[in-house]
């Protein structure tokens, strides 16, 4: 007996949607709400947190002591942000985040994770050969700098506070935030140098 051919992923998704709707288990409005919910979760939020931390030492202290509360001060909270921990880079210590077993991230401040973060390649390799992976991704770290890889294996959700680039004295929070990409918040890139 020949196996039945697999339905396309579009057809399969539609099948689950239609079945749940027809049974009245969810409404189209529920699904619409949830499909748009991720629009509020974005790396610009985390970048704003970092910029505030770079410019406000009191906020930075609060962020390091209780990142969940500090992010909430700026309005960033919600699912997968119940317990956020901020990791501060230093000239001697670089931090990078992964979730090897699924693909957890702090949604409210990082957004839903990008494809590379969810790839088997990143998940398998970055814990074992972080320097090689970072180099391939464009971040060549000196052997003098230690690398800490943070594995998101339980309910803590991490964000990295990258080093503030030189030459940004007197920059506004907005201008500073523009230097912080999603990749910098995960730790596979540095904050950008000012143009």
């Amino acid at each position, binding site marked *: 007996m020949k*196996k*039945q051919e*697999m*339905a*396309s*992923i*579009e*057809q*399969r*998704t*539609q*099948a*689950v*949607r*239609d*079945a*749940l709707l027809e*049974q009245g288990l*969810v409404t189209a409005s*529920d699904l619409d*709400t*949830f*499909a748009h*919910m*991720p*629009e509020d979760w974005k790396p610009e939020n985390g970048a704003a947190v970092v910029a505030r931390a770079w410019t406000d030492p009191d906020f930075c202290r609060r962020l390091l002591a209780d990142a969940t509360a500090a992010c909430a001060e700026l309005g960033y909270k919600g699912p997968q942000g119940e*317990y956020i*921990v901020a990791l501060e880079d230093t000239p001697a210590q670089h931090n990078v985040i992964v979730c*090897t*077993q*699924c693909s957890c991230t702090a949604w409210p401040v990082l957004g*839903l994770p*990008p*494809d*590379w973060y969810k*790839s*088997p*390649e*990143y*998940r*398998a*390799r970055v*814990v*074992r*050969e*972080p*320097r090689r992976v970072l180099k*391939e*991704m464009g971040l060549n770290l000196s052997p003098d*700098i*230690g*690398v*800490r*890889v*943070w*594995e998101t*294996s*339980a*309910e*803590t959700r991490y964000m990295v506070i990258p080093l503030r680039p030189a030459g940004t004295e007197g920059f506004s929070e907005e201008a500073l935030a523009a230097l912080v990409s999603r990749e910098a918040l995960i730790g596979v890139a540095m904050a950008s140098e000012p143009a």
Partner: protein
Amino acid sequence: MDGIHDLGGMQGFGEISMESEEPTFHEPWQATAFALMFASQVVVRSHNVDEYRHSIERMNPAHYLQADYYERVLTGTASLLVEKGHLSAEDLSARAGGAFPLSRPVAPSPMADLSPQLEPRFSVGDRVRVLTISPAGHVRAPKFCRGCVGTVLHRAPKFGFPDVAAHGGTRRKEHTYHVEFASQDLWPGEGSSKDSVVVDLWDSYLEAVNR
């Protein structure tokens, strides 16, 4: 389970390809899959997040590795909706107009026999060893750190113990710890002595190490 999802340290994978200006969703079905995952947990209340994670782990390994992330999201969600009796596999396949691969069943004896640790046993600076358990069900201690010794950096709040929650047992909460392992203890002879991996581990995954 010693499943395909537990990828940390596995070799043979290639370069990581990055996309600039990547959108949140590349295709409309991905947003729908995300919404269905979310709605199944918070509206239908079909299952909890630990059951959900485990349902993805139970996918056929070849399917798991070749599937897009949101295809895994949809497959795990659909599998639980069928297992919990909300939907039928035949109906899904008929609607989809083709085969609709679901996750494999839960293993017969999914849990290791771990004592609940309602009070925290460890403090910052303590040396701890990860138990060498390999239960057939859900477990969140990655295989690469089992049996290894590390140092507690931080005690996090109590969170639901996933092994029990993923298999419908009585909900219990335990502290987790950020435990730092020297990379060279995890993979002897490789990497830099300056590097480490920090794993977030529930109390009952750990045992004390006498110095």
